[in-house]
Each structure stands twice: as C-alpha cells, then as structure tokens.
C-alpha cells in the first residue's frame, strides 16, 4: 500500500512538523514499515508544492529521533522504533506531559477532566 503524506497549509503548525507527524502516524498505523524507502526530499517537495528544505528538515528531525535513517545511497529509509531508545524517550515524554498537566492544573482544570481528555486523545489516535 502506498503511504501518503498530508499537509494543511492553513494551519499554524509548521509544514515540516506536519510532515513529521504524518510520517510518525504512518509508522504507528503500520502503513509505513521498517525498510520502506521514502521519496527523495526533492520529489516529495515537488509533489506537495513546497520548498524541499522543509521536507529535508522533517526528514532530519525524524532521523535524529531514530524513526528514519539514511543509507549509503542517501536514500531515506524507515527504521521503525529502536527499543533501546525507549527508556530515554519515556523520560522525555513524561517531562513534556508533566509540563502540560502542570499548566492545565494552574488554569484550574480538574484532574478528572485531564484524564478524560487523555483517554479521548488515545482513542482518536487509535482510530
């Protein structure tokens, strides 16, 4: 099956972040599998009608995060998820989550509402 990247240029979220999220979402849903070769950044940029530096930026971030890697032929390939990175990632994720919950509580949002929102987000991502 062909994986499609989708962007929305009317959003405030930068395009490179949207491409990053789109690829991560593809990996999570199984549309992108370990070993899949992604389009060269120049071609993907032409298909999306955007600057190729934007695609490169998204690819570079995903490479740093361990979702992708570049081989000797300079192809960008899906590496999937490396379990050795999990502990480090979970620590980072907890910090981010702590900041968000802190902020919400400071605004007086009760923890039950926060829990409901988290459950809703998990359900919507799964679906």
């Amino acid at each position, binding site marked *: 099956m062909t994986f*499609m990247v*989708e962007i*929305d240029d009317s959003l405030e979220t930068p395009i490179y972040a949207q491409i990053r999220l789109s690829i991560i979402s593809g990996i999570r849903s199984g549309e992108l599998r370990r070993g899949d070769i*992604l389009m060269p950044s120049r071609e*993907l940029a032409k*298909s999306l*009608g*955007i600057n190729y530096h934007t695609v490169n930026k998204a690819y570079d971030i995903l490479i740093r995060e361990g979702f992708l890697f570049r081989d000797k032929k300079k192809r960008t390939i899906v590496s999937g998820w490396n379990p050795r990175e999990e502990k480090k990632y979970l620590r980072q994720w907890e910090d981010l989550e702590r900041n968000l919950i802190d902020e919400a509580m400071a605004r007086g949002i009760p923890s039950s509402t926060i829990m409901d929102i988290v459950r809703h987000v998990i359900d919507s991502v799964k679906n």
Partner: protein
Amino acid sequence: MLGFFVFAFSDLTVMALIGYTNYIMPSLTPRSVQFGVRIPPDRIRDSSIARLTRNFRIEIVMVTALIMIAALILAFNLGTDAPLGYSILAELIAVWSSYYFTRRKLRSIKIKMGWTRGYVQKIPAPASRINYKSHLKIYLIIPPAMAIALTALAAIVFYPLMPSQIVVAFSGTKPVKFVIKSLATVMIPVYYQLFILAATAFTFLIYRRVRIEPEYPDLVSSAMRQLELRSRLYFSISVFITFMDFGILMSGMADWEMIPGIFSELSILPTIFGLIAMVYVISEGVKKIKQNYSYETGAAENLPKIMNRDDDRFWKMGFIYYNREDPAMMVPKRFGLGYTINLGNILSWVILTVIVAAIAIAFME
C-alpha cells in the same frame, strides 16, 4: 485535385478528433477537478456539474460540426484548402471559449453555494511504494525504432536505383527542389524520424517527473488512475509516431522516385490514421482504467470532511499555472492530458524564452 481531397480529409479528421477529445475530456481529468475547478468529494456527482458537462458536450458537438461544414463549403467555393487549416484554429478557440465559460459558471456556483465550507483542505502526496517513473516503459521505443530502421534499410537497398538528384520539395505533384544523391542526402527522411523520436523521448522524460495529484476520498486509487492514464498516453503517442514514421517513409520513397510522386501528397494519411489510433487507444484505456480503479464516492454524509486544497486561485483563465510558492516547474494540466509549466517559477520563463526563440528562428529561416 487529389491534394485538395487529401488535405480536406486530413483537416476534417483533425477537427473531428479535436472535437471528440474535448467531448471525452471531462472523463479524463481528475474527479476532484471539474472544468478546472477544485470540487469537494461530496459534490462530484452534483446535478449542476452533470448539467454543465452535458451543455459543454452539446456545445463541443455543435461547434465542431458547424466549423467543419463552414470550412468545407468555403474550401469548395474558393477552390483551396486554406480555409480548412484556419478552421482548426477557429475550432481550438471555440472549444477553449466553451471550457472557459463553463469553468466560470462552475466556479461561481461553487462560491455561491459555499461548497468548500466546513472542509479541511489538505495537500496529499505519495511518500513511499509508488514509483511513477516506472510507468514509462522502455519497450515503447521499439515500434518507432523499427520504422526508422526500415526507412534506413530502404534508403540503402534502393540507393543504386535512385536518380542522381533527389527531390526534397514538391509543389503539388511537381518537384521543385533537388539535392545531389549521396548516402547523407538519401537519409533525410531518417533524420526527420530521429528528430521526432528524440523530441518525443525528451517530452516523455519530463512527463515522468511531473507529479501526480492524489484525490480525496480515495488517495491511492486516484493516484493509480492518473498513473495508468499516463501509461496509456505514452503508449498512444508511441503508436502515433510509428504511423507518422511510415508517412515519412512513404514520402521518402516518393522523393527517391521509387514510387510515383503522387504518394508524396498521400503521405499525410498514415499520420492521420496514427492520430485516429492514438485517440482510440486513449479512449479505450479510459474505459479499462475506470473498471480497474473505480472508487465509490459513497453517500455524501458518510464522507470525511477533507478535500484537496482549493487551488483554483493559481490557475489563471483556467489553463495558466502561476504559483511562486511551488518549486515544481512542470505540473499536470488542469483540463487536458499532459503537463504545463509553472509561470511562477523563474526557470520556466527561461525555458519558455528558449522555446519561443527556437520557434522564431525556425520561422525566420
């Protein structure tokens, strides 16, 4: 007189084919782009689009028939085929006007009825497991290459039988320009054929890099449809230039005085038959593609509220693409097959200047 009938037949066939191609054009364009207007998925089957398509088709049939009849009457009365040539230009202008006004009507309906209201607009693009360059098959070169080889072989085999001077131009059936026979001069038809093949190959190589535009709600299926249509187009053009090469061979045989000079006038006929074959291959291909990659738009209320980005603003008059943000130099045509240039890209202007200069130089010579 024969020349007149051959040209009349050729011009009328070309006019009929232009009419027919435009008649089927609404079926050839991506479904989310009707008459150059971006349409959300739940409006693809809208009754106003069906009505506009019907009216457009009636206009095309009427315009084609009227211009053909008028051109024929004029040509017979004046005793020259000149009106037939101009009538092709008149038909092209009439067809384009019909498209332009249909597009304007559809766009105003879309804006007035707020078709895009509530829609999330996205730009989708294939990012893996699709290689649209692979749809250009190398074997497509074989038929025209064989026709060229046959022409070269004929030039070599008939060389001893050819006169000492070779005709290179006719006025009617009367030879008016000659060159001295040599292996280089008898190969003139082969040079023409090679030039056509090289120009076609170059166009194909550009086309295979031109993006495809997946459409909501079925991104993969719509992308595959566009790729298959592209394959058909490559194949049909390969068939067309093969027929054209046989026409050149026929004309060459007449120039070498191996067949009567009258065949020089008839040599346009293989090209015309090639055009008919080309249009046939495309229209048959469209039927197959529709069967193989059919996708249901489903009930309007069940569709997710996502559509392709409304990019109408980048298309000036419905056929000129101008988008400075888009790095692509070539983009698929909005209404029609093939590609067009992005005038928002500076490189496109360079290429356009080179092409215009080349045409101007060719005309001056």
